[in-house]
């Protein structure tokens, strides 16, 4: 039983990253209607930047700088992905973000090499609760995901900017009529989501080393988490991320680590198929 709970604890920590990326995807989708295929790249970029910065400065400062830099890159991605008004469809935007993800792999490979990178965790001690080892890093990851879900929900429901984000995706024309600039809305959404995913990446790298090509797996796991909530619910994306992480760890523990991604993807395929009963293409 102790090993089972150990798997659950590790699963919740990796699942937190999926949840964070999933919630970021939901935020961008709700604000712009775009599914950002390059979202996972932000996690990788932040992780690799922190790895480079930490050689010269304390970890906290390195992490902060990396997060800021990633948010800046995310605003650039926003401008490119949104494209031209009336000419770039949402499907074209998706393909543009696919292009950005491919291009980013080239840049990351050129800048950081192909070796997966990692750096020391927040603390190398671990708490023991009833035989289950809990690393502080795991706890921080889970808490950050939880806090992000709470703050994002508040942001979208209670703040003017959040309401503007939701409104502009619900009805772009009406949003423009009341004076919202869709491009700046997209930039805000991408920047917030980019910073959030960057925090996830910074916290992920000490537990799972990241390399230039990790972005794709992170994106697709995040998308799977977001699909739990139909790409619109922050809360369900959080739960989806946790569930996906725990499921993957249980497969690693009791079946075979090679099947962990396969089973997670199968779950996502079934979920998408199940969703298709409700939502119809427009």
């Amino acid at each position, binding site marked *: 039983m102790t090993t089972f709970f150990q798997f659950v604890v590790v699963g919740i920590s990796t699942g937190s990253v999926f949840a964070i990326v999933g919630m970021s995807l939901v935020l961008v989708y709700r604000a712009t209607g775009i599914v950002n295929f390059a979202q996972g790249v932000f996690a990788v970029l932040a992780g690799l930047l922190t790895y480079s910065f930490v050689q010269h400065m304390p970890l906290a400062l390195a992490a902060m700088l990396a997060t800021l830099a990633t948010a800046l890159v995310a605003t650039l991605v926003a401008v490119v992905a949104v494209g031209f008004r009336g000419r770039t469809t949402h499907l074209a935007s998706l393909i543009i973000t696919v292009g950005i993800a491919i291009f980013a792999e080239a840049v990351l490979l050129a800048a950081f090499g192909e070796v997966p990178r990692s750096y020391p965790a927040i603390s190398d001690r671990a708490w023991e609760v009833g035989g289950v080892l809990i690393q502080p890093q795991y706890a921080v990851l889970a808490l950050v995901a939880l806090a992000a879900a709470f703050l994002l929900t508040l942001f979208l429901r209670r703040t003017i900017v959040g309401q503007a984000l939701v409104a502009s995706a619900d009805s772009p024309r009406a949003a423009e009529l009341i004076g919202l600039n869709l491009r700046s809305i997209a930039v805000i959404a991408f920047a917030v989501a980019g910073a959030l995913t960057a925090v996830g990446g910074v916290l992920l790298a000490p537990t799972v080393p990241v390399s230039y090509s990790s972005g794709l797996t992170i994106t697709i796991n995040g998308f799977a988490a977001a699909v739990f909530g139909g790409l619109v619910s922050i809360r369900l994306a959080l739960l989806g991320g946790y569930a996906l992480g725990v499921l993957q760890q249980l497969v690693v523990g009791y079946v075979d680590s090679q099947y962990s991604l396969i089973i997670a993807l199968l779950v996502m395929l079934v979920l998408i198929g199940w969703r298709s009963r409700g939502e119809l*293409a427009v």
Partner: protein
Amino acid sequence: MSAELAAQGRAARRRRVGAARVAALVGATVFACWLPFQLELGDVGLYDRMGLYALVAIGLTLLMGFAGQVSLGQGGFFLIGAYTSGLLTMGLDADTRLVDPQAGIDPLLAVAIAPLVTAGIAVVIGIPLMRLRGHYLAFATLAFALIAWSLLYAQDSFTGGQYGVTVTKRLVVAGHEITGATHAAVVWGLVGLALLLSTNLVSSRVGRALQAIAANEPAAAASGINVALYKLQLFVFAAAMAGLAGGLFTFFAQFLGPEDFGIIVSLLFVVMVSIGGLGSVYGAVVGAVTIVYAEHKLRELGTHETLLGWDLPSTAPSILSLGVFGLLLIVIMLFFPHGLLPGIAGAVSGMRRRLSRRSTP
């Protein structure tokens, strides 16, 4: 009466234009099949690969152009087609594969089964997904391709894992061994056939329905077109084309390993289609030829020790091809969302019109 005659005349004219087009296509196909016998051995491989990828791109461009759906997992169908024909030919039991010459079935039959398998998979994936917005199919097909690719490693006793499967048997049709230039000729013959079928399809009843769907989906649905069914058929057709290309790839490479089927292959098919224009089958062929050639040249460039005075790392070939293709996809989708070739053609004709207007005031 006269209106009827005029209609008949129009129909006859259309048939004549159709016949001329078919004749041109047949001529081009004959040339494409003759060409590999004139090429050097190294170039035949490149040429063959262009044809194989063109088969996949033709299917994908119809899906993207008419169904408004994008598949990021055509490489997965290509993979399954290749391994289906390879494993069926060499025997499903890995232990007897290279020892027992009787293990496995006839290569030609195996190639024929490959597209049926991928079409079957596409039906299962496609039924729930074709009714959803585009990004669901994009991610589902990507997930499918990732699953297929991961299974190569997870089921390594069956697929050979990273060491792959060597296919020792040759594809033989009516006593002729289909290898080298002959293989390339067969592949390009099939490309010609696929083009002929697709252009006929586009101008048939089915094609008019597809065009209606592409132009205005709710209106098409309102006039009684079963939109989801047509989209599903396109998806299944695209999967079958990729499966057929994969099945033929087996007897082109005579070896199957994971490197030829990475996720980037799936994404490259999307780049090929966006170069040629969404929905343009001829454009898809041009896109496939361009990408295969460009990848070959970039790989060559990347293996140099230095480039423009810069020392190149060992990862340079990957950096160059990922960078160029990623950038290409971004630029095309931003500035020429209907395809690079149609975009350039439109810009040229627009400029010519402007010039002629200026010269005749």
